[in-house]
């Protein structure tokens, strides 16, 4: 018996010495393998998703109904946090700043990425060009912000130096002051992410059948018409993916703000985006319950954006199948 057990399954399969025993053994082994192995395969991943995504999300909802402060016992306080939220001027102000950031960031980034992807697919197959366009994404956000804050510096940033050379000593822009810091951060984030998005669009363009363009060319359609009627509709699946991920990401802007601005959300309160407010509540004031409430609000906004995108762009269908 033990002799059989040490045999590998392929040897057992090939051997004809004791067919009934061999077969039963093999069937038993493969049967138990069929049952156990799938669970072994998904167990680590399922554990991770459950522990660090599913349960925390549920716990986040739960926390938003408590007065948790990380130290003492958390009390269930019903909708009190939500009532507070509605009357919290900082929340609405932060939401406004965040929306302003999204409105500066997303249209600029998406249009620029699309234009780059179109230009690349028309002009060059060079991997080098695509790699260069992508380079900024390899730089940590912190470093990106550090170098850009020096480039945009009021006194000795090269851009303001250049502006002064052209337009005299007063011709400079306070890119990092209270008024301009949010558009500046939106522009800097665009610089970092546009290459990644352009690569996604570029790959999407490659999937559009050339015949469609040939047919349009024969019909004498204008460039703009071809773009409107062929390119844009057929890019829709990629467009939905890009918009959902980038808009949700933009609403959660934090790293770049934390680096560009001072910890208090300055200059003034110009960079107190929602995520700043959440981390400020949670990690400076240890007001975990209320921080979770603000997080739930941001969560619901993100879900609404994803839903609107999916429905507006009919993500599930493709025009290629029509």
């Amino acid at each position, binding site marked *: 018996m033990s002799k059989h057990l040490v045999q590998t*399954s*392929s040897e057992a399969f090939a051997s004809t010495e004791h067919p009934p025993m061999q077969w039963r053994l093999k069937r038993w082994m493969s049967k138990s*393998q*069929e*049952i156990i192995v*799938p669970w072994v*395969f*998904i167990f*680590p*991943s*399922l554990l*991770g*998703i459950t*522990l*660090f*995504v*599913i*349960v*925390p999300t549920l716990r*986040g909802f739960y926390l938003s109904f408590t007065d948790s402060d*990380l130290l003492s016992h958390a009390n269930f306080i019903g909708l009190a946090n939500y009532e507070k939220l509605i009357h919290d001027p900082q929340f609405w102000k932060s939401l406004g700043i965040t929306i302003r950031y999204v409105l500066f960031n997303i249209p600029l980034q998406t249009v*620029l990425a699309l234009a*780059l992807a179109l*230009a690349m697919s*028309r002009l060059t197959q060079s*991997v080098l060009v*695509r790699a*260069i*366009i992508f*380079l900024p994404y390899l*730089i*940590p*956000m*912190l*470093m*990106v912000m*550090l*170098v*850009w804050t*020096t*480039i945009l510096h009021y006194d*000795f940033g*090269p851009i303001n130096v*250049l502006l002064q050379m052209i337009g005299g000593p007063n011709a400079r822009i306070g890119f990092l002051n209270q008024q301009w810091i949010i558009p500046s951060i939106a522009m800097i984030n665009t*610089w970092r992410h546009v290459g990644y998005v352009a690569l996604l669009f570029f*790959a999407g363009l*490659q999937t559009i059948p*050339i015949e469609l363009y040939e047919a349009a060319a024969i019909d004498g359609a204008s*460039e703009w018409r071809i773009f409107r009627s062929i390119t844009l509709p057929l890019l829709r699946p990629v467009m939905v993916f890009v918009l959902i991920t980038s808009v949700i990401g933009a609403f959660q802007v934090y790293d770049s703000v*934390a680096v560009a601005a001072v910890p208090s959300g300055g200059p003034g309160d110009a960079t107190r985006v929602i*995520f700043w407010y*959440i981390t400020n509540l*949670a*990690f400076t004031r240890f007001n975990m319950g209320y921080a*979770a409430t603000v*997080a739930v609000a941001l*969560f619901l906004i*993100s*879900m609404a954006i*994803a839903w609107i995108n999916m429905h507006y762009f009919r993500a599930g269908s493709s025009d290629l199948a029509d």
Partner: protein
Amino acid sequence: MTPSSLNQARNNELKKSSSTGRVMAWGFLILWILITLFPLWWIVRMAFSTQRDLLGDPANLLPVNFTLDAFKRVLGLIPISEALAQGGFPKTLHFWLYLRNTFVVTVAMVFGGTVFNAMAAYAFARLKFPGRDKIFNLYMVALIMPTVLNLIPNFILIHQIGWVGTLQGIIAPSFLGSAFGVFFLRQFFLGINRDLEDAARLDGAGILGVFWHIIVPMSIPPILTVSILSFIDTWNNFQWPYFAGGMGTNESATVLTVGLAAFRAQQQSGLPDYTGMMAGTLISIVPIFVVFLALGRRAVDSIQFSGIK
């Protein structure tokens, strides 16, 4: 037709279109390449400049009084007093320690994540077990879940285990993989021809054998895509390592991004050590550039691939 030949044909087709349009498109592309490269050059330019003379010559496109002092300061090769005299930070940056921490965190997350993602993805794509589709729906929910709601509960969880301020606290949430990785690889595995697997099974290969000898070798490109993206994200991540690592208070759990950020905050009155920060930046992005260059075309293709599912 392969994508490149397809594009070749498209290019030929469009060669006929207006040449002014092409010139404008080239102009736009070149302009953007310059905008992309200028800040990268500015990092290099400042890193090799002399700190004390930096502001005197803001219009100079080349390093101001070329020197390696900033690198020496960042790497702790010269005493504090000398660093101060150069206009540098008043404190030693434990650069190698931070680099080691970033390295440990990144390797653990990329390796663990990739292995566990691939295993789970294979189970969801090919193996049969009760509740499979219901469990996979859970992954779909996790996939679209914004991270904002997880930050605080995850921090509390790590806090309760007593892992705040440790490397394992930083690693834990991503070590077991991600919903995106599982979803992405599963989509790919579903497209692999079953015949090969069936043939291997008939030859007596077990599930593990099929997975390791057939699925994995055939899936190098998508596995690489997930790994490269996770490598970039992990190496560059700031938010989670900042909070889980103890907000920069614990040197042994401080990663590079957090270390350099804290270093910046420590500046005293007067000019921040810009040259030192840029030198640190430059050294810290070397590994990621090396990986990117070594993989070359494959890396670029992989990243493009991540949006098409």
